[in-house]
Protein backbone atom coordinates (compact mmCIF):
# COMPACT_ATOMS: atom_id res chain seq x y z
CA UNK A 1 0.00 0.00 0.00
CA UNK A 2 1.52 3.27 -1.12
CA UNK A 3 1.91 5.81 1.64
CA UNK A 4 3.50 8.42 -0.68
CA UNK A 5 0.21 9.30 -2.35
CA UNK A 6 -1.89 10.68 0.47
CA UNK A 7 -4.54 13.35 -0.13
CA UNK A 8 -6.66 15.15 2.51
CA UNK A 9 -10.44 14.96 2.27
CA UNK A 10 -11.04 18.73 2.63
CA UNK A 11 -8.59 21.64 1.93
CA UNK A 12 -6.85 22.92 5.07
CA UNK A 13 -5.72 26.35 3.74
CA UNK A 14 -6.60 26.40 0.05
CA UNK A 15 -6.43 23.63 -2.52
CA UNK A 16 -3.29 25.01 -4.25
CA UNK A 17 -1.34 25.82 -1.09
CA UNK A 18 -2.31 22.46 0.40
CA UNK A 19 -1.14 20.72 -2.77
CA UNK A 20 2.24 22.49 -2.61
CA UNK A 21 2.92 21.28 0.94
CA UNK A 22 1.55 17.82 0.18
CA UNK A 23 3.92 17.54 -2.80
CA UNK A 24 6.90 18.54 -0.63
CA UNK A 25 5.84 15.96 1.94
CA UNK A 26 5.38 13.29 -0.74
CA UNK A 27 8.82 14.05 -2.24
CA UNK A 28 10.31 13.74 1.24
CA UNK A 29 8.59 10.36 1.75
CA UNK A 30 9.74 9.22 -1.69
CA UNK A 31 13.40 10.11 -0.99
CA UNK A 32 13.19 8.53 2.48
CA UNK A 33 11.76 5.37 0.93
CA UNK A 34 14.69 5.28 -1.52
CA UNK A 35 17.28 5.46 1.27
CA UNK A 36 15.40 2.80 3.24
CA UNK A 37 15.16 0.42 0.27
CA UNK A 38 18.67 0.97 -1.08
CA UNK A 39 20.29 -0.78 1.89
CA UNK A 40 17.83 -3.68 1.96
CA UNK A 41 18.74 -7.02 0.47
CA UNK A 42 18.49 -8.46 -2.12
CA UNK A 43 20.20 -6.05 -4.48
CA UNK A 44 18.68 -6.11 -7.98
CA UNK A 45 22.06 -6.52 -9.70
CA UNK A 46 20.74 -7.61 -13.10
CA UNK A 47 18.32 -4.70 -13.42
CA UNK A 48 20.98 -2.26 -12.15
CA UNK A 49 23.41 -3.36 -14.87
CA UNK A 50 20.67 -3.21 -17.51
CA UNK A 51 19.85 0.34 -16.43
CA UNK A 52 23.54 1.36 -16.47
CA UNK A 53 23.70 0.10 -20.06
CA UNK A 54 20.46 1.85 -21.05
CA UNK A 55 21.43 5.15 -19.45
CA UNK A 56 25.13 5.13 -20.30
CA UNK A 57 25.66 3.42 -23.60
CA UNK A 58 22.54 4.81 -25.23
CA UNK A 59 23.45 8.41 -24.28
CA UNK A 60 27.00 8.07 -25.59
CA UNK A 61 26.42 9.24 -29.19
CA UNK A 62 24.60 12.41 -28.12
CA UNK A 63 27.15 13.14 -25.39
CA UNK A 64 30.05 12.65 -27.82
CA UNK A 65 28.60 15.02 -30.39
CA UNK A 66 27.59 17.69 -27.88
CA UNK A 67 30.82 17.46 -25.88
CA UNK A 68 32.99 17.73 -28.99
CA UNK A 69 31.07 20.70 -30.41
CA UNK A 70 31.05 22.46 -27.02
CA UNK A 71 34.87 22.22 -26.77
CA UNK A 72 35.38 23.27 -30.36
CA UNK A 73 32.97 26.22 -30.30
CA UNK A 74 34.11 27.45 -26.89
CA UNK A 75 37.72 27.53 -28.13
CA UNK A 76 36.71 29.26 -31.36
CA UNK A 77 34.73 31.93 -29.51
CA UNK A 78 37.45 32.54 -26.92
CA UNK A 79 40.26 32.89 -29.49
CA UNK A 80 39.57 36.48 -30.73
CA UNK A 81 39.53 37.94 -27.21
CA UNK A 82 42.80 36.23 -26.26
CA UNK A 83 44.34 37.08 -29.65
CA UNK A 84 43.86 40.80 -28.89
CA UNK A 85 46.39 40.45 -26.07
CA UNK A 86 48.55 37.94 -27.99
CA UNK A 87 47.63 35.31 -25.41
CA UNK A 88 46.32 32.48 -27.61
CA UNK A 89 48.81 30.17 -25.88
CA UNK A 90 46.54 30.38 -22.82
CA UNK A 91 43.69 28.77 -24.74
CA UNK A 92 44.34 25.15 -23.57
CA UNK A 93 44.37 26.10 -19.89
CA UNK A 94 41.43 28.49 -20.24
CA UNK A 95 39.34 25.91 -22.07
CA UNK A 96 40.29 23.07 -19.73
CA UNK A 97 39.29 25.10 -16.66
CA UNK A 98 35.97 26.02 -18.28
CA UNK A 99 35.26 22.48 -19.42
CA UNK A 100 36.31 20.61 -16.31
CA UNK A 101 34.92 23.07 -13.77
CA UNK A 102 31.64 24.00 -15.42
CA UNK A 103 30.83 22.90 -18.94
CA UNK A 104 31.32 19.13 -18.70
CA UNK A 105 29.12 18.60 -15.61
CA UNK A 106 26.47 21.04 -16.78
CA UNK A 107 26.30 19.88 -20.41
CA UNK A 108 26.21 16.22 -19.34
CA UNK A 109 23.52 16.92 -16.75
CA UNK A 110 21.32 18.88 -19.13
CA UNK A 111 21.59 16.22 -21.84
CA UNK A 112 20.83 13.47 -19.31
CA UNK A 113 17.92 15.46 -17.90
CA UNK A 114 16.44 15.60 -21.40
CA UNK A 115 17.23 12.07 -22.45
CA UNK A 116 17.36 9.97 -19.28
CA UNK A 117 14.97 11.97 -17.06
CA UNK A 118 12.21 12.07 -19.66
CA UNK A 119 12.65 8.40 -20.51
CA UNK A 120 12.45 7.35 -16.84
CA UNK A 121 9.40 9.58 -16.30
CA UNK A 122 7.64 8.22 -19.38
CA UNK A 123 8.54 4.58 -18.72
CA UNK A 124 7.44 4.54 -15.09
CA UNK A 125 4.43 6.72 -15.91
CA UNK A 126 3.31 4.30 -18.57
CA UNK A 127 3.83 1.38 -16.20
CA UNK A 128 1.76 3.18 -13.56
CA UNK A 129 -1.22 4.00 -15.79
CA UNK A 130 -1.29 0.52 -17.35
CA UNK A 131 -1.25 -1.03 -13.84
CA UNK A 132 2.09 -2.79 -14.44
CA UNK A 133 3.41 -1.38 -11.14
CA UNK A 134 0.30 -2.66 -9.34
CA UNK A 135 0.82 -6.03 -11.07
CA UNK A 136 4.33 -6.22 -9.59
CA UNK A 137 3.00 -5.24 -6.19
CA UNK A 138 0.32 -7.95 -6.13
CA UNK A 139 2.86 -10.52 -7.39
CA UNK A 140 4.72 -9.96 -4.09
CA UNK A 141 7.51 -8.08 -5.88
CA UNK A 142 8.80 -4.80 -4.47
CA UNK A 143 8.34 -2.47 -7.47
CA UNK A 144 10.01 0.47 -5.74
CA UNK A 145 13.20 -1.51 -5.27
CA UNK A 146 13.10 -3.03 -8.74
CA UNK A 147 12.16 0.10 -10.68
CA UNK A 148 13.14 3.17 -8.66
CA UNK A 149 16.19 2.10 -6.65
CA UNK A 150 17.94 0.55 -9.66
CA UNK A 151 17.29 3.57 -11.90
CA UNK A 152 18.39 6.13 -9.31
CA UNK A 153 21.55 4.16 -8.48
CA UNK A 154 22.40 3.56 -12.14
CA UNK A 155 21.95 7.23 -13.07
CA UNK A 156 23.97 8.37 -10.04
CA UNK A 157 26.82 6.06 -11.06
CA UNK A 158 26.68 6.62 -14.82
CA UNK A 159 26.32 10.44 -14.99
CA UNK A 160 29.78 11.06 -13.39
CA UNK A 161 31.30 8.60 -15.91
CA UNK A 162 29.56 10.42 -18.75
CA UNK A 163 30.78 13.71 -17.29
CA UNK A 164 34.41 12.54 -17.38
CA UNK A 165 33.88 11.35 -20.94
CA UNK A 166 32.27 14.67 -21.97
CA UNK A 167 35.27 16.50 -20.49
CA UNK A 168 37.70 14.37 -22.47
CA UNK A 169 35.73 14.73 -25.72
CA UNK A 170 35.33 18.47 -25.16
CA UNK A 171 39.10 18.78 -24.76
CA UNK A 172 39.57 16.87 -28.02
CA UNK A 173 37.22 19.35 -29.75
CA UNK A 174 39.24 22.20 -28.31
CA UNK A 175 42.51 20.54 -29.36
CA UNK A 176 41.25 20.27 -32.96
CA UNK A 177 40.75 24.02 -33.14
CA UNK A 178 44.07 24.81 -31.43
CA UNK A 179 45.91 22.32 -33.65
CA UNK A 180 44.42 23.73 -36.86
CA UNK A 181 45.33 27.31 -35.91
CA UNK A 182 48.61 26.96 -34.01
CA UNK A 183 49.80 23.49 -35.13
CA UNK A 184 50.13 22.51 -31.45
CA UNK A 185 50.85 18.83 -30.78
CA UNK A 186 48.41 16.82 -28.66
CA UNK A 187 51.07 16.30 -25.98
CA UNK A 188 51.78 20.04 -25.65
CA UNK A 189 48.05 20.82 -25.64
CA UNK A 190 47.19 18.43 -22.82
CA UNK A 191 50.28 19.41 -20.83
CA UNK A 192 49.20 23.06 -20.98
CA UNK A 193 45.58 22.12 -20.34
CA UNK A 194 46.22 20.13 -17.17
CA UNK A 195 48.73 22.59 -15.73
CA UNK A 196 45.94 24.69 -14.25
CA UNK A 197 43.61 21.83 -13.26
CA UNK A 198 43.76 20.68 -9.66
CA UNK A 199 42.34 17.60 -7.99
CA UNK A 200 39.77 19.87 -6.32
CA UNK A 201 38.49 20.94 -9.74
CA UNK A 202 38.04 17.38 -10.87
CA UNK A 203 36.66 16.22 -7.51
CA UNK A 204 34.17 19.09 -7.41
CA UNK A 205 32.94 18.25 -10.89
CA UNK A 206 32.54 14.61 -9.91
CA UNK A 207 30.54 15.67 -6.86
CA UNK A 208 28.35 17.86 -9.07
CA UNK A 209 27.78 15.00 -11.51
CA UNK A 210 26.81 12.63 -8.68
CA UNK A 211 24.32 15.17 -7.31
CA UNK A 212 22.94 15.88 -10.79
CA UNK A 213 22.60 12.18 -11.60
CA UNK A 214 20.73 11.55 -8.37
CA UNK A 215 18.47 14.55 -8.99
CA UNK A 216 17.64 13.61 -12.60
CA UNK A 217 16.69 10.04 -11.70
CA UNK A 218 14.85 10.96 -8.53
CA UNK A 219 12.72 13.60 -10.28
CA UNK A 220 12.04 11.26 -13.24
CA UNK A 221 11.09 8.38 -10.96
CA UNK A 222 8.90 10.55 -8.73
CA UNK A 223 7.00 11.98 -11.68
CA UNK A 224 6.55 8.58 -13.33
CA UNK A 225 5.66 6.80 -10.09
CA UNK A 226 2.90 9.33 -9.35
CA UNK A 227 1.59 9.62 -12.92
CA UNK A 228 -2.16 9.48 -13.44
CA UNK A 229 -4.81 10.54 -15.98
CA UNK A 230 -3.90 7.90 -18.58
CA UNK A 231 -1.67 8.66 -21.56
CA UNK A 232 -1.91 12.39 -20.91
CA UNK A 233 -0.36 11.75 -17.50
CA UNK A 234 2.55 9.87 -19.09
CA UNK A 235 3.39 12.84 -21.34
CA UNK A 236 3.06 15.21 -18.39
CA UNK A 237 5.35 13.02 -16.25
CA UNK A 238 8.06 13.02 -18.93
CA UNK A 239 7.77 16.75 -19.52
CA UNK A 240 7.72 17.77 -15.86
CA UNK A 241 10.64 15.42 -15.15
CA UNK A 242 12.82 17.36 -17.62
CA UNK A 243 11.72 20.85 -16.57
CA UNK A 244 11.97 20.22 -12.82
CA UNK A 245 15.31 18.38 -12.98
CA UNK A 246 16.84 21.17 -15.13
CA UNK A 247 15.60 23.74 -12.61
CA UNK A 248 17.17 21.80 -9.73
CA UNK A 249 20.41 21.28 -11.67
CA UNK A 250 20.92 25.07 -11.96
CA UNK A 251 20.05 25.61 -8.30
CA UNK A 252 22.49 22.85 -7.27
CA UNK A 253 25.16 24.32 -9.58
CA UNK A 254 25.00 27.66 -7.77
CA UNK A 255 25.11 26.03 -4.33
CA UNK A 256 27.97 23.63 -5.11
CA UNK A 257 30.07 26.37 -6.78
CA UNK A 258 29.65 28.55 -3.68
CA UNK A 259 30.65 25.69 -1.39
CA UNK A 260 33.67 24.72 -3.55
CA UNK A 261 34.86 28.33 -3.78
CA UNK A 262 34.95 28.33 -0.01
CA UNK A 263 37.63 25.57 -0.15
CA UNK A 264 39.60 27.02 -3.05
Amino acid at each position, binding site marked *: *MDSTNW*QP*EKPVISKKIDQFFITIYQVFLFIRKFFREVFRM*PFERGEFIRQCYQIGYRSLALITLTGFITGLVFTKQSRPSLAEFGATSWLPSLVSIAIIRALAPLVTALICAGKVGSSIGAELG*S*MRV*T*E*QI*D*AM*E*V*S*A*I*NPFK*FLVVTRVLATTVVVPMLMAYTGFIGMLGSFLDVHLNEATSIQTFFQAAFEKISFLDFGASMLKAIVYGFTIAMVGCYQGWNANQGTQGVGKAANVAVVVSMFFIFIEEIIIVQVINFFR
Partner: protein
Amino acid sequence: MKTAKPNINYDEIVIDIKGLYKSFGSNHVLQGVDLQVHQGENVVVLGRSGTGKSVLIKIISGLLYPDQGKVNVLGQEVPDLDEYALRDLRRQIGFSFQNSALYDSMTVGENLAFPLKRNTRHLSSSKLRKSVEAVLEAVGLSQTLHQLPSELSGGQRKRIGIARTLIMQPKIMLYDEPTAGLDPITSTDINNLINEVQQRYSTSAIIITHDLTCAKTTGDKIAMLLNGNFVKQGSFQDVFNTEDPVIHSFYDYNFIQ
Protein backbone atom coordinates in the same frame (compact mmCIF):
# COMPACT_ATOMS: atom_id res chain seq x y z
CA MET B 1 -25.56 -21.76 -16.15
CA LYS B 2 -22.48 -23.25 -14.50
CA THR B 3 -22.63 -27.01 -15.04
CA ALA B 4 -19.46 -28.56 -13.54
CA LYS B 5 -19.68 -29.31 -9.79
CA PRO B 6 -16.87 -27.49 -8.02
CA ASN B 7 -15.38 -28.88 -4.85
CA ILE B 8 -16.49 -26.16 -2.44
CA ASN B 9 -15.69 -26.48 1.25
CA TYR B 10 -18.38 -24.47 3.04
CA ASP B 11 -16.65 -24.97 6.40
CA GLU B 12 -13.61 -22.98 5.36
CA ILE B 13 -13.89 -19.23 4.71
CA VAL B 14 -10.93 -17.83 2.76
CA ILE B 15 -12.16 -14.22 2.44
CA ASP B 16 -14.26 -12.63 5.14
CA ILE B 17 -15.23 -8.98 4.73
CA LYS B 18 -17.30 -7.19 7.37
CA GLY B 19 -18.54 -3.59 7.40
CA LEU B 20 -16.13 -2.36 4.74
CA TYR B 21 -16.15 1.36 3.97
CA LYS B 22 -14.08 3.20 1.37
CA SER B 23 -14.42 6.76 0.09
CA PHE B 24 -12.43 8.90 -2.34
CA GLY B 25 -13.05 12.45 -1.17
CA SER B 26 -16.80 12.98 -1.20
CA ASN B 27 -17.36 9.87 -3.34
CA HIS B 28 -18.45 7.15 -0.90
CA VAL B 29 -17.73 4.02 -2.94
CA LEU B 30 -18.19 1.20 -0.45
CA GLN B 31 -20.59 1.65 2.44
CA GLY B 32 -20.55 -1.23 4.88
CA VAL B 33 -19.91 -4.14 2.53
CA ASP B 34 -20.09 -7.71 3.91
CA LEU B 35 -18.89 -10.69 1.86
CA GLN B 36 -17.72 -14.23 2.50
CA VAL B 37 -15.91 -16.49 0.05
CA HIS B 38 -15.53 -20.20 0.85
CA GLN B 39 -12.67 -22.46 -0.13
CA GLY B 40 -13.08 -23.51 -3.77
CA GLU B 41 -15.92 -21.07 -4.45
CA ASN B 42 -16.20 -18.62 -7.35
CA VAL B 43 -18.01 -15.47 -6.23
CA VAL B 44 -19.07 -13.04 -8.92
CA VAL B 45 -19.42 -9.39 -7.93
CA LEU B 46 -21.86 -7.75 -10.32
CA GLY B 47 -22.56 -4.10 -10.63
CA ARG B 48 -22.54 -1.08 -12.89
CA SER B 49 -19.30 0.76 -13.74
CA GLY B 50 -18.03 2.99 -10.96
CA THR B 51 -19.81 1.16 -8.14
CA GLY B 52 -16.55 0.14 -6.46
CA LYS B 53 -16.19 -3.45 -7.67
CA SER B 54 -12.50 -3.05 -8.54
CA VAL B 55 -11.90 -1.06 -5.35
CA LEU B 56 -13.14 -4.09 -3.40
CA ILE B 57 -10.55 -6.48 -4.86
CA LYS B 58 -7.82 -3.85 -4.61
CA ILE B 59 -8.55 -3.66 -0.88
CA ILE B 60 -8.48 -7.47 -0.63
CA SER B 61 -5.07 -7.59 -2.32
CA GLY B 62 -3.75 -4.73 -0.16
CA LEU B 63 -3.37 -2.22 -2.99
CA LEU B 64 -5.76 0.17 -1.19
CA TYR B 65 -6.45 0.79 2.50
CA PRO B 66 -10.06 0.58 3.65
CA ASP B 67 -11.43 3.52 5.64
CA GLN B 68 -13.17 1.16 8.02
CA GLY B 69 -14.08 -2.51 8.35
CA LYS B 70 -12.54 -5.98 8.57
CA VAL B 71 -10.84 -7.62 5.60
CA ASN B 72 -9.71 -11.09 6.57
CA VAL B 73 -7.93 -13.07 3.85
CA LEU B 74 -6.67 -16.60 4.57
CA GLY B 75 -6.94 -15.87 8.29
CA GLN B 76 -5.04 -12.58 8.20
CA GLU B 77 -6.36 -9.04 8.62
CA VAL B 78 -5.03 -7.36 5.45
CA PRO B 79 -5.02 -3.71 6.66
CA ASP B 80 -3.02 -4.69 9.77
CA LEU B 81 -0.26 -6.51 7.90
CA ASP B 82 3.21 -5.02 7.64
CA GLU B 83 5.05 -4.88 4.31
CA TYR B 84 6.64 -8.33 4.65
CA ALA B 85 3.53 -10.13 5.89
CA LEU B 86 1.52 -8.52 3.10
CA ARG B 87 4.04 -9.76 0.54
CA ASP B 88 3.81 -13.28 2.00
CA LEU B 89 0.02 -13.14 1.72
CA ARG B 90 0.18 -11.84 -1.85
CA ARG B 91 2.14 -14.94 -2.87
CA GLN B 92 -1.11 -16.81 -2.27
CA ILE B 93 -3.29 -14.38 -4.21
CA GLY B 94 -3.47 -14.12 -8.00
CA PHE B 95 -4.72 -10.86 -9.49
CA SER B 96 -5.81 -10.75 -13.12
CA PHE B 97 -6.05 -7.10 -14.22
CA GLN B 98 -8.70 -5.68 -16.54
CA ASN B 99 -6.08 -4.70 -19.14
CA SER B 100 -3.87 -7.69 -18.27
CA ALA B 101 -1.02 -5.37 -17.13
CA LEU B 102 1.64 -7.43 -18.90
CA TYR B 103 5.16 -5.98 -18.76
CA ASP B 104 5.63 -4.37 -22.18
CA SER B 105 9.40 -4.73 -22.29
CA MET B 106 9.39 -8.49 -21.57
CA THR B 107 8.43 -11.44 -23.75
CA VAL B 108 5.56 -13.69 -22.68
CA GLY B 109 8.05 -16.18 -21.23
CA GLU B 110 9.83 -13.46 -19.26
CA ASN B 111 6.49 -12.08 -18.05
CA LEU B 112 5.59 -15.49 -16.64
CA ALA B 113 9.01 -16.22 -15.18
CA PHE B 114 9.33 -12.79 -13.54
CA PRO B 115 7.16 -13.30 -10.42
CA LEU B 116 8.45 -16.81 -9.87
CA LYS B 117 12.10 -15.74 -10.22
CA ARG B 118 11.62 -12.83 -7.80
CA ASN B 119 9.82 -14.93 -5.21
CA THR B 120 11.94 -18.09 -5.33
CA ARG B 121 15.51 -16.87 -5.68
CA HIS B 122 17.21 -20.26 -5.91
CA LEU B 123 15.05 -21.88 -8.58
CA SER B 124 17.08 -23.62 -11.30
CA SER B 125 16.59 -22.37 -14.85
CA SER B 126 15.29 -25.78 -15.99
CA LYS B 127 12.60 -25.80 -13.26
CA LEU B 128 11.71 -22.24 -14.14
CA ARG B 129 11.37 -23.13 -17.82
CA LYS B 130 9.20 -26.14 -16.98
CA SER B 131 6.89 -24.03 -14.79
CA VAL B 132 6.53 -21.44 -17.54
CA GLU B 133 5.79 -24.10 -20.15
CA ALA B 134 3.26 -25.79 -17.85
CA VAL B 135 1.17 -22.65 -17.24
CA LEU B 136 1.40 -21.64 -20.88
CA GLU B 137 0.04 -25.06 -21.78
CA ALA B 138 -2.70 -24.71 -19.14
CA VAL B 139 -3.96 -21.54 -20.85
CA GLY B 140 -3.42 -23.04 -24.31
CA LEU B 141 -0.84 -20.56 -25.56
CA SER B 142 2.43 -22.53 -25.73
CA GLN B 143 3.30 -20.98 -29.09
CA THR B 144 3.52 -17.42 -27.67
CA LEU B 145 6.55 -18.04 -25.42
CA HIS B 146 8.88 -15.66 -27.28
CA GLN B 147 6.30 -13.10 -28.35
CA LEU B 148 5.99 -9.59 -26.92
CA PRO B 149 2.67 -8.53 -25.32
CA SER B 150 2.16 -6.02 -28.15
CA GLU B 151 2.02 -8.94 -30.61
CA LEU B 152 -0.88 -10.65 -28.78
CA SER B 153 -4.63 -10.26 -29.24
CA GLY B 154 -6.86 -9.03 -26.39
CA GLY B 155 -7.98 -12.56 -25.51
CA GLN B 156 -4.41 -13.88 -25.57
CA ARG B 157 -3.28 -11.06 -23.30
CA LYS B 158 -6.03 -11.96 -20.82
CA ARG B 159 -4.95 -15.60 -20.88
CA ILE B 160 -1.29 -14.71 -20.35
CA GLY B 161 -2.33 -12.38 -17.52
CA ILE B 162 -4.12 -15.31 -15.86
CA ALA B 163 -1.15 -17.62 -16.56
CA ARG B 164 1.20 -15.14 -14.86
CA THR B 165 -0.85 -15.41 -11.68
CA LEU B 166 -1.19 -19.20 -11.92
CA ILE B 167 2.57 -19.72 -11.98
CA MET B 168 2.64 -18.80 -8.28
CA GLN B 169 -0.04 -21.46 -7.58
CA PRO B 170 -2.33 -19.09 -5.70
CA LYS B 171 -5.10 -20.16 -3.34
CA ILE B 172 -7.26 -17.17 -4.28
CA MET B 173 -7.82 -15.62 -7.71
CA LEU B 174 -9.12 -12.09 -8.19
CA TYR B 175 -10.38 -11.39 -11.72
CA ASP B 176 -11.03 -7.76 -12.65
CA GLU B 177 -13.44 -7.61 -15.61
CA PRO B 178 -12.05 -10.76 -17.30
CA THR B 179 -14.29 -10.46 -20.38
CA ALA B 180 -14.31 -6.67 -20.82
CA GLY B 181 -13.62 -5.63 -24.40
CA LEU B 182 -13.64 -9.18 -25.78
CA ASP B 183 -15.87 -10.66 -28.50
CA PRO B 184 -18.48 -13.27 -27.36
CA ILE B 185 -16.44 -16.29 -28.51
CA THR B 186 -13.25 -15.14 -26.78
CA SER B 187 -15.33 -14.24 -23.71
CA THR B 188 -16.66 -17.82 -23.64
CA ASP B 189 -13.08 -19.12 -23.83
CA ILE B 190 -12.08 -16.92 -20.88
CA ASN B 191 -15.14 -18.02 -18.88
CA ASN B 192 -14.22 -21.65 -19.52
CA LEU B 193 -10.64 -20.94 -18.50
CA ILE B 194 -11.84 -19.41 -15.20
CA ASN B 195 -13.83 -22.60 -14.50
CA GLU B 196 -10.86 -24.76 -15.52
CA VAL B 197 -8.58 -22.85 -13.15
CA GLN B 198 -11.08 -23.41 -10.32
CA GLN B 199 -11.23 -27.16 -11.01
CA ARG B 200 -7.57 -27.77 -11.77
CA TYR B 201 -5.91 -25.53 -9.14
CA SER B 202 -8.71 -25.69 -6.49
CA THR B 203 -8.76 -21.92 -6.21
CA SER B 204 -11.36 -19.68 -4.67
CA ALA B 205 -12.11 -16.58 -6.71
CA ILE B 206 -13.77 -13.22 -6.82
CA ILE B 207 -14.79 -12.29 -10.34
CA ILE B 208 -15.60 -8.63 -10.96
CA THR B 209 -17.82 -8.14 -13.97
CA HIS B 210 -20.91 -6.51 -15.40
CA ASP B 211 -21.23 -9.28 -18.00
CA LEU B 212 -24.14 -11.55 -17.01
CA THR B 213 -23.00 -14.39 -19.27
CA CYS B 214 -19.67 -14.42 -17.44
CA ALA B 215 -21.51 -14.30 -14.09
CA LYS B 216 -23.84 -17.14 -15.06
CA THR B 217 -21.04 -19.34 -16.44
CA THR B 218 -18.41 -18.85 -13.76
CA GLY B 219 -20.21 -17.92 -10.53
CA ASP B 220 -21.15 -20.30 -7.75
CA LYS B 221 -22.45 -17.27 -5.89
CA ILE B 222 -23.48 -13.88 -7.25
CA ALA B 223 -23.24 -10.68 -5.22
CA MET B 224 -25.00 -7.63 -6.61
CA LEU B 225 -23.30 -4.34 -5.70
CA LEU B 226 -25.51 -1.24 -5.77
CA ASN B 227 -24.96 2.15 -4.13
CA GLY B 228 -21.95 0.95 -2.17
CA ASN B 229 -23.51 -2.18 -0.74
CA PHE B 230 -24.49 -5.71 -1.71
CA VAL B 231 -28.23 -5.65 -2.28
CA LYS B 232 -28.50 -9.36 -2.97
CA GLN B 233 -26.27 -12.46 -2.68
CA GLY B 234 -26.97 -16.03 -3.76
CA SER B 235 -27.09 -18.24 -6.82
CA PHE B 236 -27.71 -16.65 -10.22
CA GLN B 237 -31.36 -17.67 -10.07
CA ASP B 238 -31.80 -16.41 -6.49
CA VAL B 239 -30.42 -13.01 -7.38
CA PHE B 240 -32.40 -12.45 -10.55
CA ASN B 241 -35.62 -14.11 -9.40
CA THR B 242 -36.75 -10.85 -7.85
CA GLU B 243 -39.20 -8.02 -8.30
CA ASP B 244 -36.50 -5.40 -7.65
CA PRO B 245 -36.70 -3.08 -10.72
CA VAL B 246 -33.01 -2.07 -10.54
CA ILE B 247 -31.80 -5.69 -10.64
CA HIS B 248 -34.30 -6.42 -13.36
CA SER B 249 -33.17 -3.51 -15.49
CA PHE B 250 -29.57 -4.74 -15.16
CA TYR B 251 -30.64 -8.22 -16.32
CA ASP B 252 -32.76 -6.94 -19.22
CA TYR B 253 -30.10 -4.55 -20.43
CA ASN B 254 -27.43 -7.29 -20.48
CA PHE B 255 -29.52 -9.74 -22.44
CA ILE B 256 -30.88 -7.18 -24.89
CA GLN B 257 -27.24 -6.35 -25.60
